């Protein structure tokens, strides 16, 4: 566990941002990952008093407060109705219900962890991070950036007609994934994200002009091959790089079939 000289429940994002400019201060979100560090903090910044645990649906988008828990998102029917039921597949293997009752969407996105199911999932939707200072930034850009002192206020997902499909491969049911994979199906093409390589997830796009809406089994295989070849892979205690690449292909094939793209 980290140590801190002060624990401050901030009254506003202004205050949170101000405090967060000092390197020795740190925001506590769900405290699932931060608690594992042995960091010596001056001030721990708690956002739980900001009522930022909402999921709001508007005409054009979903807004998810940074302190919304993974469990609340997993159980949100409107979100699942809009983007497809796989949100519960993406979140449902993360440790257990108690964990997901505390872990936050903001914390997961901020962490940009290699093993993150959350990041992999959101990358295939039209997702933005609403930052206190830098404003609204595409998630793919945010995910690729380094840690800085800005504060995530909310996650915005545009309702652009996309549906997300999710698969992961795990050695045990609630372990970190060996590979996480998601596909977002859009009217013009498909978005693919592969995470836990073990590096963090990235997203690529394949237009229907390249890989059409309906695919033969061979075309599915070659698209999956193309997707898995588009990423680099590494080795850790869970699996080797070559194996991960293979799993990325297998999961992508499964996802494609799940989307119903097979030619009759």
């Amino acid at each position, binding site marked *: 566990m980290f*140590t801190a*000289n002060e624990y401050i429940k901030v009254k506003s994002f202004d205050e949170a941002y101000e405090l967060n400019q000092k390197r020795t201060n740190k925001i506590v979100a*769900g*405290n699932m990952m931060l608690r594992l560090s042995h960091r010596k903090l001056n001030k721990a910044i*708690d956002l739980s008093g900001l009522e930022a645990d909402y999921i709001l649906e508007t005409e054009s988008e979903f807004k998810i407060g940074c302190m919304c828990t993974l469990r609340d998102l997993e159980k949100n029917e409107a979100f699942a109705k809009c983007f497809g039921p796989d949100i519960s597949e993406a979140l449902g293997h993360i440790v257990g*219900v108690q964990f997901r*009752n*505390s872990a936050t969407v903001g914390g997961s996105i901020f962490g940009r962890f290699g093993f993150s199911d959350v990041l992999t999932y959101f990358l295939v939707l039209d997702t933005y991070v609403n930052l206190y200072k830098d404003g609204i930034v595409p998630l793919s850009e945010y995910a690729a950036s380094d840690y800085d002192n800005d504060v995530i206020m909310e996650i915005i997902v545009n309702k652009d007609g996309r549906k997300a499909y999710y698969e992961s491969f795990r050695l045990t049911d609630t372990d970190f994934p060996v590979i996480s994979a998601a596909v977002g199906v859009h009217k013009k093409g498909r978005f693919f994200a592969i995470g836990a390589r073990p590096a963090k997830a990235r997203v690529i796009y394949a237009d229907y002009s390249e890989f059409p809406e309906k695919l033969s089994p061979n075309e599915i295989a070659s698209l999956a091959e193309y997707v898995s070849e588009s990423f680099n892979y590494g080795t850790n205690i869970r699996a080797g790089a070559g194996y991960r690449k293979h799993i990325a292909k297998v999961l992508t094939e499964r996802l494609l079939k799940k989307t119903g793209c097979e030619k009759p």
Partner: protein
Amino acid sequence: MKIRLKINGKDFAPHIYPSMILLDLLRDLGFKSVKRGCGTTNCGLCTIIMDNKSVLSCSVPAARADGKEIYTLEGFQDKAAEIAEFLADEGADQCGFCAPGFVMNVIALEKENPNPTEKEIDEYLVGNLCRCTGYMSQHRAMARYFAHKQKEA
């Protein structure tokens, strides 16, 4: 620093240090049913109920519990005894070290979904590790418990 919180229906105003975790605070206050099993939010032994949701007290900063309503198994003794009947009948208690966290999460499940399928029971309780039982006896006991509750209802 000082916080105010309700534990098992009673008011407490303990002094805490800024990075104290709720698990340590609860044990210090005498709620010994709350156990530490892993320290990495993986095992479920420290499960408590905060604001009607089951959470891992090893990950909740004590300071965040300021103003909250918290329950440990000490606060659910009647319910625990009722659930215990079913577990004891299967010999599912074994070493018992994971039992309080397990029972707490069963209570949370029942609140959220009083009529779960066997699959839903297993999925809800998956974050409660147990090394003694192989889970089968817990599974049988909980299937019977929820069937019994439905008959009662």
